[in-house]
């Protein structure tokens, strides 16, 4: 097999990132994104900003002109208050031309079936997407891609790739959601402490975080909104040093979590991963990790947040 054939055989993984505005969509595509993840926060969770369908339609136009894709998250755990509008929302996303919808709640599948929509579907259940057989189950229900839990190690991801009969996506960079409650925990705590109302910290451009009393160096962002409370990881996943190992596995898509980061930071991260993917695709045998990639990320990295491999090289017990 010649070198040329070898690089033909390698299918470049897609790299995507979450975005909260049209401007972010544009900048991330310029930085090298193959796809962006957006959504209307009425129906979506964990995005850097909310985009109504009209804006999503503009994002699609912008992305398609640049041969890139837009995925719309419709990934809430739905209660009855949102069911009546769900079908129309999905219809409007299809009309807007999104390239896929990201879902976790079976209510989305039911709405897609009822409307006879032709949307591509990416399935994610956050931390509970943990084996390939379950992924294949959702593929048999219409999903064309599964987004894996972040609490899997390299061996498990490799097994997932071998066993899954459709595309799989993993997160390669950024923070992760580690706790999701329907309760408003910050508000309840402040009420308990006799502080009348939880100040709108987020509106003031501030961020709340938790520190477990035995772990003073780890800071866990806590995000409360009308849907409840999210706790995020204290570190950022960073796999740039072992991206070749992930590419060797033949994973279809890589994802950068853009939540709670500056646009500058996200652009830098995107550019670095873009370069690494392109370098590997050009010649896997000659690929070498470059220190300058990690240096560029480190320069903008919050010093209070460690860069780690997440669960890639961990063994968990139970």
């Amino acid at each position, binding site marked *: 097999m010649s070198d040329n054939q070898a690089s033909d055989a390698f299918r470049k993984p897609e790299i995507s990132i979450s975005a909260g505005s049209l401007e972010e969509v544009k900048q991330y595509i310029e930085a090298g994104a193959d796809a962006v993840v957006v959504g209307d926060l009425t129906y979506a969770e964990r995005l850097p900003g909310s985009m109504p369908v009209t804006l999503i339609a503009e994002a699609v136009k912008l992305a398609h002109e640049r041969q890139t894709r837009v995925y719309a998250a419709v990934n809430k755990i739905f209660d*009855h208050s949102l069911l009546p509008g769900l079908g129309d929302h999905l219809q409007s996303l299809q009309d807007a031309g999104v390239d896929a919808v990201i879902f976790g709640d079976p209510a989305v599948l039911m709405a897609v079936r009822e409307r006879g929509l032709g949307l591509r579907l990416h399935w994610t259940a956050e931390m509970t997407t943990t084996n390939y057989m379950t992924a294949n189950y959702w593929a048999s229900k219409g999903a064309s891609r599964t987004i894996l839990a972040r609490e899997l190690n390299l061996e498990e991801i490799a097994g997932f790739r071998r066993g899954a009969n459709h595309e799989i996506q993993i997160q390669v960079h950024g923070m992760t959601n580690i706790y999701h409650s329907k309760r408003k925990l910050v508000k309840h705590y402040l009420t308990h402490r006799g502080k009348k109302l939880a100040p709108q910290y987020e509106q003031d451009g501030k961020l709340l975080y*938790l520190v477990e009393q035995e*772990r003073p160096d780890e800071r866990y962002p806590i995000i409360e909104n009308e849907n409840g409370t999210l706790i995020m990881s204290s570190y950022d996943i960073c796999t740039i040093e072992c991206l070749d190992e992930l590419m060797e596995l033949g994973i279809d898509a890589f994802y950068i979590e853009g939540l709670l980061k500056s646009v500058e930071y996200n652009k830098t991260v995107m550019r670095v991963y873009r370069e690494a993917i392109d370098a590997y695709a050009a010649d896997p045998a000659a690929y070498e990790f470059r220190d300058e990639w990690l240096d560029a990320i480190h320069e903008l990295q919050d010093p209070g947040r460690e860069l780690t491999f997440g669960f890639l090289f961990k063994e968990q017990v139970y």
Partner: protein
Amino acid sequence: MTITMSREEMLGKRRKLALPELLAPAGNLEKLKFAIRYGADAVYIGGQRYGLRSNADNFSFDEMREGVAFARQHGAKVFVATNIYAHNEDLPGLHDYLSELDRIGIDAIIVADPAIIETAKRAAPNVELHLSTQQSTLNWQAVRFWKDEGVSRVVLAREASMREIEEIKEHVDIEIEVFIHGAMCSSYSGRCVLSNHFTDRDSNRGGCCQSCRWKYDLFVSEEDLMTESYSARLTADGEDPFTMSSKDMCMIEHIPALIRSGVDSFKIEGRMKSIHYVATVVNAYRQAIDAYMRDPFAYELKQEWLEEIGKAANRPVSTGFFFEEPDHDDHIYTPEDKPQAYDFAGLVMDYDAASGMAVIEQRNHFKPGQEVEFIGPDGTHFKQIVGDIYDTDGRPLDAARHPLQLIRMHVEQPVHKFDMMRKKLN
């Protein structure tokens, strides 16, 4: 908060009330027997694999067989929790495990992961599928999806309100099960990996280390992004720290509303709980459900049931999401003082009505002069002071010291085999 409804409203709403199933946890064979004796219509247990309580005793296949035989004799059902989110390494062996459950005669498995659902359809065709609360099912479209997939019962997310439960029942003809008592995740069940992150223990495979009940400090940063500088600490020294710890669920005061909602199964949490806990809690709910079904219009909440629940309680209680969204009163911020003031002292094994003498199997230390209480599924409920006690050879004892030792003592009212004798702690 109590739901009140006039006779007319009630008659207009439902013509016939259905008797719900009372479903109890059974951490081992003995607890299974107690749960059933004390009034459970069904019990759920864990096997050696695929359950979410890796620290519980859990049943071998032989113990399951014995449990199923006992349950059959008493007209009760046995469910097995296979509600992990499996990893690839858990898949080999799954088919054989589920086949064995089918052969043993298990009535249903409680299951969250579709990989296990699909395998069970092939491997265990006689075993019903009950969708676990770990799937966080909160709307009727999702319930309909699972019904179409062949699931016969859905255990709803603990976030479902009474109104949502009723709407689901109106839209989908399927059995609905809800948690009515016990400890609760404060997150959506399954949507929490704090334990994985803090201790490398996988919460969704039974390794949860209950990090939600740990103590935290809450900070607000100066800027919209994380920076090195902490600014304001919102927790203060000497004041209650931040925590995600939820009060336990308790719906004993709302049995009429629960029955009228049409919920098919009332579930009690606690495969790790003691015999005393399970028997006491099951007993109280059994009495409340039966009293309401006997005569809904004459039903009154008995103080006695509340007191009984209190004697087994581990934490302060709340009604979760049933009536309104939880607020600060539904969380535990102050140090947990254990309200459990009672312990299992002995089990009645025999009773002679003529002499008033009972044979008691020792379960915890007790001695003459101590106040004890007898309770049982046949209505036994009284207090007395322990008089003289003897071993089975008639030798007087100064205390019942040895586990499972048989003790003879006089009881002031009739008792039945398997009544419990409890003592106040301290």
